[in-house]
């Protein structure tokens, strides 16, 4: 008796469409790891830096030797400008380290040694700051080398050993992020400040699209299950109006839910984002116009998501099959979600860039980051692209609405073929 029921359930659930969906999702997730890139390799790599060590003496030599060992020196000379240029040219370059003359002298006299660091920040994704993180660790080790040197020479020359030997240097750092120079912060600190943009926004966008998408699909499934679709289709309205009506209705509800979600998330983020750094002070804040653009970007990609949902919804036979059909949308939204969380658009390989651009969901996920850097072109291109793809999709859907497919079902035709 039980087996009889179980068999029936499995038969109902494992339709060709369900199986197809599962296969596609598996493939999507399988390929995603590759797209994000080998994070582990990167963590093991030596950071590329430029050094300008103008101080002369045994400590300078020791520091240089240490850095040779622990980093890849793309420049080692006397010119700050040339060093920075060399660093910029190398697309892996992380920072320029400058030690002015009198460094060792100051230390000997019990004053802190000044280490100037000019960081280059290439992206605000979780993985974009891995190399600067490694370099921070290297700088800590460099401090130990300096401490050791001071202790050695103190012992040899019988000098004084003061407490500052254990923490001998003071870092003076600036970060260049795209075209902006942000004083007194390292890339890691800036990334921490931007964490809400890196994580919250992709997650929020994905949720909005999933919510909206499942609403459209469910609505189509319910139209069939409740036998309301046939009546609707005989109403004297253009098919495009029916399609747009469904999409706009869900878009409105989706955005309404999104607004609530964003408010909640803002509180959540505020609660652990250290309030010490003000984005406006860094020149990383957004204007009202920027926010409107982000909204338009979100709306255009939501429209795309809803049209895809509509296309899938045509296949839905009832409420149950509608649930399964939301998975492809989720998969499609998760790709850019993870990619943009871990990487900036600028720092990924060209192939990944193409993938990101092609999936319209990426654009609202990246919009805020682009706009903090005044990159309006990518945002507007993204909006235009999403709207264009949506228009094509809607045309296709309207075409299908004019055929028998909605009534007879798509799967039935396949089964017969």
């Amino acid at each position: 008796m039980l087996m009889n029921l179980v068999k029936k359930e499995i038969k109902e659930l494992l339709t060709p469409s369900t199986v197809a969906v599962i296969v596609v999702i598996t493939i999507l997730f399988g390929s995603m790891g590759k797209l994000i890139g080998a994070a582990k390799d990167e963590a093991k790599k030596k950071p590329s830096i430029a050094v300008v060590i103008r101080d002369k003496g045994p400590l300078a030599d020791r520091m240089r030797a240490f850095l040779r060992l622990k980093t890849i020196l793309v420049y080692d000379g006397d010119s700050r400008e040339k060093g920075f240029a060399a660093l910029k040219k190398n697309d892996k370059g992380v920072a320029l380290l400058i030690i002015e003359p009198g460094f060792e002298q100051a230390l000997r006299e019990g004053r802190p040694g000044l280490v100037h660091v000019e960081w280059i920040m290439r992206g605000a994704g979780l993985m974009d700051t891995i190399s600067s993180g490694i370099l921070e660790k290297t700088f800590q080790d460099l401090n130990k080398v300096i401490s050791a040197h001071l202790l050695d020479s103190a012992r040899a020359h019988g000098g004084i050993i003061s407490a500052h030997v254990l923490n001998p240097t003071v870092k003076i750092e600036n970060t260049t992020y795209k075209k902006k120079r942000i004083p007194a912060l390292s890339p890691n600190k800036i990334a921490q400040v931007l964490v809400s943009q890196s994580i919250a926004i992709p997650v929020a966008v994905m949720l909005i699209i999933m919510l909206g998408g499942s609403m459209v699909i469910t609505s189509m499934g319910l139209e069939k299950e409740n036998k309301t679709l046939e009546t609707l289709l005989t109403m004297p309205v253009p098919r495009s109006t029916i399609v747009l009506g469904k999409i706009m209705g869900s878009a409105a509800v989706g955005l309404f839910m999104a607004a609530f979600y964003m408010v909640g998330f803002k509180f959540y983020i505020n609660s652990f984002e250290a309030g010490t750094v003000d984005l406006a002070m860094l020149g990383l804040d957004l204007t009202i116009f920027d926010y409107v653009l982000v909204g338009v970007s979100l709306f255009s990609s939501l429209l795309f998501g809803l049209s895809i949902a509509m296309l899938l919804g045509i296949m839905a036979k009832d409420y149950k099959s509608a649930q399964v059909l939301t998975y492809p949308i989720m998969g499609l939204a998760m790709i850019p979600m993870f990619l943009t969380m871990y990487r900036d658009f600028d720092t990924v390989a060209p192939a990944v860039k193409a993938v990101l651009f092609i999936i319209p969901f990426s654009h609202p996920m990246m919009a805020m980051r682009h706009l903090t850097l005044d990159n309006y072109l990518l945002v507007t291109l993204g909006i235009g692209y999403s709207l264009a793809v949506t228009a094509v999709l809607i045309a296709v859907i309207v075409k299908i609405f004019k055929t028998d497919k909605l009534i007879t079902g798509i799967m039935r035709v396949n089964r017969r073929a």
Partner: protein
Amino acid sequence: MHLLEVSGLTKSYGKTTAVKSIDFHIPAGEIFGLIGPNGAGKTTTLRVISTLLSQSGGTVTVCGHRVDKEPHEVRKAISYLPEEAGVYKNLRGLEYLEFIAGFHGTRSERAKMVEDGISIAGLGDRIRDKVSTYSKGMTRRLVIARALMTRPSLAILDEPTSGLDVVNAHEVRNIIKRSVSEERAVLLSSHNMLEVDYLCDRIALVASGRIVEAGTPGGLKEKYGCTNIEEIFMRIMETESHADEPGQKRD
């Protein structure tokens, strides 16, 4: 001019041909009934006329508009009641009537439509309740009201009284009968032979996708020497089952 003209209508689903070259026409003022066994092709025929399915062959013209060429014009002229029509569960009965009226006519016409709808549905105060609380018969009355309140030139009703109790079915039949006027007609399908006898000016018996007999109820009774349509139906089906291919599938 006939309100509906169907000639050589053929419809296949993949390999199954559900309707095989059907011809009939309905002039204004007439109620035309399709009868026939399960899977005969009645619903398929009605769906093609209602622009829901595309025909595989033949032509269908409603009020001078071909269903394949000008579906939008056809939709303005018809009102289709599907055989198991449902209603959006979260709407109230009244809201549903307003929703449907929203697709038709001008603002003042719509108000009149809804008024008519309420009286056809005859649900009393329950019209303000959610549809999900309705019984099967109440839902059926609501969708019949929805179909007739728009005063379509051609009402296409697939088994309009199925699921209704004797009293309700009787009332609905009278409503259908009254809805026909000089410029309006009704096409319906039914499994109730007394109903078609009472309601229809002409009937066609469909079997395996073909019209095997057609005429006025009186004319047919005379022709077969029977006192009711059911007897005629049985007689024809008996001869058909010897002649026709076996195994029609139900959907």
